[in-house]
């Protein structure tokens, strides 16, 4: 169990490396595959709550380090309305919220029905992006919703979800490697049959 949890942490760190090489699809309103979020969401459903929170902390803090903008230092006479950015660390809360959402399907996942969790990764990614954008709108003052934002959010969620079976397969292989069962409920009846 501990070794599997550690491997999930390392997988999340590896996802950050991979994310650096994943380009945005210019033709799809700059949609992208959010590998980091995908690994976190898939891992969140397969671990206990404290480990999920640890993953949310690591994922959130590194994501903010990756995405934050430097503060604008300029003449206040010209820049009368400085544009606010989100505070460092807010992603931890968003990651944790999505982690709890994923854990809602934990009973089904433990029963071996990972397909529902795979679908939920798309929903969770969409909610994450929607919450992220809403927070930006909140701190910047006005809520603007455009087709390109909807396209970006929708395509990103869809593309991310499509890759979830691969991540679940990776987690399954890691669990097998470290003698951990991802689907304990699914394996129980088999043991009884023998």
């Amino acid at each position, binding site marked *: 169990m501990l070794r599997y949890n550690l491997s999930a942490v390392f997988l999340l760190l590896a996802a950050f490396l991979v994310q650096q090489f994943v380009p945005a699809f210019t033709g799809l309103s*700059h949609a992208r595959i959010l590998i980091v979020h995908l690994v976190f969401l898939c891992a969140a459903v397969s671990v206990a709550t404290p480990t999920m929170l640890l993953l949310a902390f690591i994922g959130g803090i590194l994501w903010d380090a990756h995405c934050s903008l430097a503060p*604008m230092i*300029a003449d206040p006479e010209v820049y009368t309305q400085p544009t606010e950015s989100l505070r460092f660390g807010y992603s931890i809360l968003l990651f944790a919220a999505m982690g709890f959402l994923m854990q809602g399907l934990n009973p089904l996942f433990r029963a071996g029905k990972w397909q529902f969790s795979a679908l939920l990764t798309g929903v969770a990614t969409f909610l994450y992006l929607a919450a992220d954008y809403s927070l930006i709108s909140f701190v910047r003052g006005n809520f*603007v919703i455009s087709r*390109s934002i909807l396209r*970006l959010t929708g395509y990103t969620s869809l593309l991310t979800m499509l890759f979830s079976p691969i991540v679940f397969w990776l987690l399954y292989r890691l669990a097998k490697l470290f003698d951990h069962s991802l689907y304990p409920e699914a394996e129980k009846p088999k043991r009884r049959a023998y």
Partner: protein
Amino acid sequence: MGAYPQRTGGARDPGRLFQGHLAHPQIRLFAGNENPRPAAGNETFKELEAELSTIRGEIGRLRIIESRFKELERENAELRHALDFKKATDFDVVAARIIRRHPTTWWQTLEIDAGEDRGIGIQLSVLSNDGLVGLIDRPFGNRSSVLLITDEKCQVSVRVEGSPEVGILSGQRGEFDRNPTLRLRFLSKNASIRPGQRVFTTGRGGIFQPNILVGSITTVERGPLDSEALVRPAVDLNDLSTVFVVLSENP
């Protein structure tokens, strides 16, 4: 009369064409049992087959070389263009190549391959041959993050060419299309501006040097208190490969 109908018409005659050019040993292969290939021609056939595969391989190799050549030609043209810009400009600039576009979800940024090791610091303006690109947001050792003018956070003090109008230009939230527009605010109520007029930096604010082309006005929106305009950036930010970071003015 032979097996083929008699035709006239010289080289354009399809019958002659067939006999003369298409009746090749390899074409005959597909002709079935009507024209069986003589056993003595087996070796010739194999030789021709080997020759054909060699030629095909050679064509493939030449195509790769041609595509590489075109790529080098394009790169050469870009670099010449960049060199011309560097010679012509009054600024002390560092040329850099774009290595990543839109690394984050919501911010309009890109990454260049020059950083603190080449003297780049925070909030230096970034230009291209066509105009203003943005400013350095976060410099690292050997790369830097550039905040584009299409981002909402990048605000530029600008003036409209041929008019006394000055305003603040910034990107618009949620503009993820291929051709984003910028919003020019704080213009006077009856601003005498029209689509097509160019917009230049004023130099106020301490970040951008004056008289750098930013874009041209596409739409003017008149309000009860002030006017606003939409500006199309002069630089095609989706088709940009080399940029220049301004280290200082008039070296």
